[in-house]
């Protein structure tokens, strides 16, 4: 499997990354190298082997259903570039 420039463009767009022509070329090469390696991995016989879904065998840690939050509106908004009446303010997004 190999990818072309338009796929690189699409992936960059989905990730909201701005990529110029030179970077695009570099990324295409890098990504193709990675995919080549994945192709090799896929040649390994995995018949009857469960997929490894996690690298650690740690069980998932859980919490009780209790409200433990200590953050208030001011703290939550303290990094917001723009805020108003307790809300984050962002450029208009309408579907």
């Amino acid at each position, binding site marked *: 499997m190999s990818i072309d420039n338009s796929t690189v463009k*699409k992936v960059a*767009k*989905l990730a*909201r990354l701005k990529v110029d022509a030179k970077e695009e070329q570099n990324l295409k090469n890098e990504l193709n190298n990675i995919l080549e390696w994945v192709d090799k991995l896929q040649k390994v016989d995995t018949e009857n082997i469960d997929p490894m*879904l*996690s690298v*650690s*065998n*740690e*069980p*998932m*840690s*859980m*919490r*009780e*259903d*209790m*409200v*433990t*939050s200590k*953050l*208030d*509106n001011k703290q*939550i*908004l303290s990094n917001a570039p*723009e805020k*108003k*009446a*307790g*809300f*984050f*303010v*962002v*450029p*208009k*997004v*309408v*579907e």
Partner: protein
Amino acid sequence: MEYLIEGKTGNWELVIGLEVHAQISANSKLFSGASTDWGADPNSQVELVDSGMPGALPVINKHCIDQAILTGISLNAQINKKSIFDRKNYFYPDLPQGYQISQFEFPIVGKGHLNIEIDGVEKSIGITRLHLEQDAGKSLHDQDIDNSFIDLNRSGCALMEIVSEPDMSSPSEAAEYVKKLRNILRFIGTCDGNMEKGNLRADVNVSVRRKGDELGTRCEIKNVNSIKFIQQAIEFEARRQVDLIEKGEKIIQETRLFDSNNLETRSMRGKEESHDYRYFPDPDLPPLVLNEEDIEKLRLKLPELPDQKKSRFIEEFGITAYDAEILVTEKYVSDFFEQIVEGRDSKIVISWITVELFSYLKRKNVSLEESKIGPEKISSLLDLIISNKISNRQAKEIFDEYLKSDVNADTFIEKKGLIQISNESEIEELVEKVLKENPKMLEQYKSGKDKLFGFFIGQVMKLSNGKANPKMVNETLKRKLSL
């Protein structure tokens, strides 16, 4: 009954599948200790995880897992001992992480089913899966011309996405499915099911085909938040698709919005890229492993489901299937009934609830729960009827006024001076007085004019201002006249 859409070139069949998003009843969020209370000030219930702060790690809420398992059990579904949380990647301002933690390939609950009833005929609707995921925040687009406002209080709240098989074939089947599902969730307490507050909403998948054909191309109508809208959206969408196909055009698989003002569905922006969610297992969360013992414990904790309650009501209280069905369509109503029927005649209780009380609520256009009418309010009135302190007719006459008052039935009828006269000597006195005052009528009666019996009853009731116990008046009068 078969539901078909009439087109210019013949009839079309409808295929509907639903994805219901149900907010889990829990104090705190799925992966953070922020509160889930509704109606709080904006951005006042947000933790680092919910606001997407770098380095903040999600820790799962055990109660939410239990709630999903309980729901799975009540949908006759398979509970998966191992499930995986994945990241669903997309950018939107009310999703500060840049991804939603969801479950993709390995959901917590697998295949199940739910039975609905249409015109007395049962139909089984398949459940494809149920998975856990985070809710997004809320965007307000109408507060400012150039900007959108973001409130993250809902961000990270636990959702169950319950996906059905495309087993429904009419708007009313879809409505019944949502009603039944909502009712089950409310019975077992895993979701409040309040559609106005948005804690239950549905994505509706609709396609049309010729009877017996393969599935047509479907459109998904997003976020429909009332049962009525679900039906209207399906009706419009099906008609739209039939018209397009008959004009020789193709249906494009897309996401659409339902506009409840104009009763139409509209295409949402080009979705060709937004569906590319690039799911991958969330490296912050190891697999969720459940053991049989914990699942069994939950199975034992499962409360009575609507269908079971219905059967019990029919058997235990000797009421009709029709009445039982009415009672179990809302958990609140069935609890209300059970509190009143305890120690009372079920026939009287059922008729006062389903006839008198329900028609009152209908006139007021409120639900029983909204009306704030407590069971004692009804039971205290029924006790007065059962003990003959007031007649059934009197009770009906004062019913509206009584429900609006804030006193119990004893106080109310005392204030109104309505207590029925059930004292034998008092009744006798009344009867004697009437007979004495109407000697001519009495004579005519004795000479064979039986019809006058009713006249005497009327006179006694009038004399007592309607308070005399009619049954006792009847008996006393019969006795006196036969002397």
